[in-house]
């Protein structure tokens, strides 16, 4: 009897905890979406009417337009670079036997643990030495470095899960190294590359700390534009931007699911 009551209550408590965590995770997002359609600067809940005022404000301001374009450009280019670099690095780290490959891995993964401020300041100093302060090259380099750990990790996991006999089988059937890579290795790495693209895009689009240091007015990405905007004004324009971010993220995930399958992408556990 007592154990039954205990079981009931423990189940109830766990349910309560899960529900509140889920609520705390979703409520800010929902509030942001609501307030972006709110005509007044102060958030009314429930909203009295719906307006696209803040979206228009967004479209009218050139810094936001530029921010969107920059974010898209930097995101796509740094994602492409990081995927190419990630494939090459994963192959040489996992297959190679050269000394120092573990050190290289540790260095590439370091943005995960280093404070963004340090990387930002460092890159800014590098840029000032080479005369590229605020230029697109340094912004793209910065974003590539920041997303590479995620890309490398997901490609490495795919590579580790790959049966090494597959390439041997292809080799003995007459496939040279190039053909083995194209017909066997690359298709087998597809889930890892898909996950890498997803992570890289999301990380790049959201990257703030390092971008704050390396961007100039003409190369500002969206998070930096938002930051500068909130320094001057507080109104739901940022809510409108956030809503657009959410919609774009949903579309990106949907697209990737269509292309590679989200189930496959998220099955990232390593070989036991």
């Amino acid at each position, binding site marked *: 009897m007592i154990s039954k009551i205990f079981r009931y209550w423990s189940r109830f408590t766990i349910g309560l905890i899960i529900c509140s965590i889920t609520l705390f995770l979703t409520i800010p997002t929902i509030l942001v979406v609501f307030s972006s359609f709110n005509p007044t600067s102060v958030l009314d809940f429930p909203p009295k009417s719906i307006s696209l005022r803040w979206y228009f404000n967004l479209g009218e301001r050139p810094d936001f337009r530029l921010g969107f374009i920059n974010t898209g450009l930097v995101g796509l280019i740094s994602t492409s670079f990081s995927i190419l670099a990630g494939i090459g690095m994963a192959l040489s780290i996992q297959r190679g036997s050269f000394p120092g490959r573990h050190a290289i891995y540790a260095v590439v993964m370091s943005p995960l643990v280093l404070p963004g401020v340090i990387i930002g300041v460092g890159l800014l100093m590098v840029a000032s030495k080479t005369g590229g302060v605020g230029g697109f090259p340094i912004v793209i380099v910065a974003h590539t470095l920041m997303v590479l750990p995620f890309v490398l990790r997901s490609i490495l996991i795919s590579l580790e899960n790959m049966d090494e006999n597959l390439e041997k089988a292809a080799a003995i059937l007459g496939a040279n190294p190039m053909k083995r890579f194209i017909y066997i290795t690359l298709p*087998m790495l597809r889930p890892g590359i898909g996950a890498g693209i997803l992570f890289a895009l999301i990380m790049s689009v959201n990257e703030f700390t390092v971008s704050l240091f390396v961007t100039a007015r003409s190369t500002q990405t969206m998070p930096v534009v938002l930051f500068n905007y909130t320094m001057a004004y507080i109104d739901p324009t940022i809510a409108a931007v956030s809503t657009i971010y959410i919609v774009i993220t949903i579309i990106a995930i949907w697209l990737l699911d269509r292309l590679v399958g989200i189930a496959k992408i998220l099955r990232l556990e390593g070989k036991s």
Partner: protein
Amino acid sequence: MKDSQFDFYSPEPMVGLLGLTKRFGSISAVDQVDLEIRKGELFALLGPSGSGKTTLLGLIAGFHEPTAGKVVINGIDVTAIPSYKRNLAMMFQNYALFPHLSVFDNVGFGLRMRGLPRNVIRERVHKALSLVRLGGFEDRWPNQLSGGQQQRVALARALVVEPKVLLLDEPLAALDKGLRDEMRIELKEIQRNSGITTIFVTHDQSEALSLSDRLAIMDQGKIVQVDAPRQIHANPKNGFVARFLGLRNVFSGKWIRKEGELIWIESGNGKDQWVAIHPDDRVSKECTFYIRPERIQIIDRLQKIGFNYLSGIIKEINYLGTYSEIRIQLLSGTQLILFEMMFGEPSSRSVDSKVNLYIDPKDVVII
């Protein structure tokens, strides 16, 4: 077509290994191997795990670069030629089917790499699949196939390129018992009909003995003995081979007296004494010998004079159909296994009863 068991291959060499050595760090996985495999032969590399047999297969395939020595295939030194140019085929223990390709594309992969036209590929893939009795499976995916079917696809993928040499790594190990026996027969038949020189690696001595024309027994990277199954079984070269082939009653000892062809041997630190007949003078002091379990005779009364009369106690009886396997503990503590044929009537032997034994000196075989 080919009716005699032996005329399907000529003694012409197909694969030659010369002083082949592969070291990983300080460990010699393959150590100074010299071996010749004949054209059309079904050849087994037999050895316990870690004996280097898979590494040796990998050296023939070109997956590893040898530390020393040469690999010659069909008269050409291929040591420096990468595996994709060696014109071989291999079936892997886990089959290694390409999971992202259909059965058709798996089987056709080798032909596609050779740049053959599409219609030729289609025709040859269909032929190969019907050879392994998987006609109509072209559009399936590897993960939709059972283990046995996957193996057939792997075999078809290897055979379709008409390789000079077919390499099989533990071809039957991943199958369950019934399927294994079926595939064993089928494999042998396909090999006979195609006449492709085939080398297979196995740790299962019965598989090697029943399937191969000749076999090499490996231990610690070295080849211990190469011969036809029957010869190896009749004349194991040393205690390792004898034990590995599943011979029973293998003992080590040293001889203490010789009288003509008769040799007195002591084993178990002098606990047991045996008399063997061995015509060769050059028996080393330390020797290994075995007693065939089917040759040990159970007798009614112990004779006081003569050799190799022993008595002991039955510890275990296993009825195995036409014969029973009896484990006997001699008075000295040594265990002997003997096989007793059963001719219809049920055996009257029982555990813990005393038995007297006689072993003819010619059945104590010194190796």
